[in-house]
C-alpha cells in the first residue's frame, strides 16, 4: 500500500538528483547530503546494537503482534493503566526530592511543595489525581477482561497476576494517603490500620507491623514512605513485566460478540 506523501514544506521535500549527477552514464554521483549522512549514521548505530543484542526479532514479535478481528478501544485500558503507573513513578521520584518523611517535618515539606517549589503544585496534583485515575483505570481494565471473557484458559495466570497488581495498587493508595500528614490523612490512616487490626489472629500483629509498634510512632511515616516508594513499586514493576510477557506470549482474545470463523481468524495489525 502506498501512503500519500506528507505535506512537507518545499525545503524539506526530497529532491530528485539533477541531470548529470545521477550516477548514470558515467556522470558523478551526487555527494551525500547532511541528511543522508544523519540517516546513515543512525542506521549504523541501530545496526550495531541489533547485531550485538539480537533484539529485532524480539521487538518485532512484541510490538507487531497479530491481534484478533474486533480489537477495539477497550483493549487500550491495560496500556493506559501502565502509563498511569509510569506517570506516578516519574512524578513520585520528583516529589521525593522535596519531601521529608519525618512526623515533625512531613506536613511542612508537603505544604512547601505545594506553595513554594516551582511547579510543585502541578507535580503534586499530577501525582494526587493520577493515583485516582490509575485506580479507576485498573478497575475498567479488570471489567473489560471480565466481560470479554479474557480471563479464561489459557489466561488464568494473567488474571491472578492482575488481581495481585490490583491489591498492590490499592496498597499504594493506602500508604501514599498518609504522606501529606494533615488531619485527614493522619486519621484516615489510623482508621485503616485499625481496620487491619480487626482481622482475627494475625490482624493485631499486622497492625503492629504497619505502625512499627503499638502506637503511631516516630518511624511509622518513614515505614509507609519506604513501602510506598520502594517496596510496592518494585513489586508492581516486576509483575507488570510478567503480565506483559504473558500477554505477548498468549495473545489477546477476540471480543465475545465476534463469532469464530473457519479461516482468516487472525488479521495483520496495520
Amino acid at each position, binding site marked *: 500500500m502506498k501512503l500519500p506523501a506528507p505535506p512537507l514544506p518545499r525545503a524539506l521535500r526530497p529532491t530528485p538528483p539533477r541531470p548529470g549527477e545521477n550516477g548514470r552514464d558515467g556522470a558523478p554521483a551526487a555527494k551525500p547530503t547532511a541528511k543522508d549522512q544523519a540517516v546513515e549514521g543512525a542506521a549504523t548505530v541501530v545496526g550495531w546494537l541489533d547485531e550485538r543484542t539480537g533484539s529485532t526479532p524480539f521487538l518485532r514479535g512484541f510490538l507487531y503482534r497479530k491481534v484478533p478481528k474486533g480489537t477495539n478501544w477497550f483493549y487500550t485500558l491495560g496500556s493506559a493503566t501502565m502509563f498511569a503507573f509510569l506517570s506516578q513513578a516519574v512524578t513520585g521520584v520528583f516529589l521525593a526530592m522535596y519531601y521529608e518523611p519525618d512526623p515533625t517535618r512531613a506536613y511542612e515539606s508537603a505544604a512547601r511543595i505545594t506553595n513554594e517549589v516551582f511547579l510543585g503544585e502541578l507535580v503534586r496534583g499530577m501525582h494526587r489525581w493520577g493515583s485516582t485515575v490509575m485506580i479507576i483505570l485498573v478497575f475498567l481494565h479488570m471489567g473489560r477482561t471480565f466481560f470479554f471473557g479474557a480471563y479464561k484458559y489459557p489466561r488464568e495466570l494473567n488474571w491472578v497476576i492482575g488481581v495481585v497488581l490490583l491489591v498492590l495498587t490499592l496498597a499504594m493508595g493506602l500508604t501514599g494517603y498518609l504522606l501529606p500528614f494533615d488531619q485527614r490523612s493522619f486519621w484516615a490512616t489510623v482508621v485503616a490500620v485499625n481496620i487491619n487490626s*480487626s482481622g482475627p489472629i494475625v*490482624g493485631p500483629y499486622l497492625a503492629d*507491623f504497619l505502625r*512499627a509498634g*503499638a*502506637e*503511631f510512632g516516630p518511624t511509622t511515616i518513614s515505614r509507609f514512605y519506604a513501602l510506598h516508594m520502594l517496596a510496592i513499586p518494585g513489586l508492581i514493576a516486576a509483575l507488570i513485566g510478567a503480565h506483559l510477557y504473558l500477554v505477548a506470549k498468549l495473545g489477546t482474545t477476540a471480543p465475545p460478540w465476534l463469532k469464530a470463523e473457519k479461516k482468516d481468524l487472525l488479521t495483520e495489525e496495520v
Partner: protein
Amino acid sequence: MADPPKFDKKSRYTADRGIPGGFEGETVTRRRLMEGGAQLAGGVAVAAIALPGLGFALGPVFEDTTPTRWQDVGTEDDFDDESYVPRVINLVPEVGDPGKTTVYLRRYDQRRDASVEGQEPQPYVCISTRCTHVGCPVRYIQASQKFLCPCHGGVYGFEGQVEGGPPVRPLDRFYTRVTAGRVEVGDRFSVNSEFERFSPRDPSNHLDGGWQYLYPSRPTT
C-alpha cells in the same frame, strides 16, 4: 595380555566410567553432589541477607515500644466523681502533636463503678478517647453524660460502656495513681464489657466470650 576393563562413558556413576576413587554402590553422583552443594551455598548466601533484612522490618512487632511513663495531670482537687475533666497526655513524645491524646478523668466512685473480683480499682477513672470501633477520637457530652464518636456514631455511657453503634468493647482506660497529692496517668489498658482488665488491644478487637481468643495480646504492649 588382558583386555583393559570396558567403561561406560555415558553412565552417571563414577565406577562405570572408571574414574579413580569410584566405587560400586554409589548413591549420590558427583554431579548431583556439586549441584546440591552449589544450591546449598546459594541458599545460605540468600538467607544471610534476607533473614536479617526481614527481621529488621519485623522487629518492632516483637518489641515493647511503649515504655511506662507516669504523667502528671493535676492535683487531687482538680477532679471529682460527678463529671469528667479533660486532660491532654503525651503517648509518644517523639512525634510531636500526633503523639498527644485527650483523656477524661474523674475520681473512682465506689457506689457507681463496677468492681471486678481480684482487681484493685484505680483511684481515678481515666478514660481514653480512642473509639474502640476503628480509633476515631470520641468526645464527652456533659448534658447527656455520654461519649460520642463523630465517625460512625458510636455511643458510650458514663463509665465508657457501649450503648450504641459499632464499637466492640468499652472505651480503654489508663492506670492512675496519686503521688504527693498529684494525680498521675500511666499505661493504657483495655476492658471487656464486665470491666475486667486486659492488656491494651487495638480498636476493633473484641474482648468478650470466645471472641477474645481471636485477638491475642501482643508483645508490643
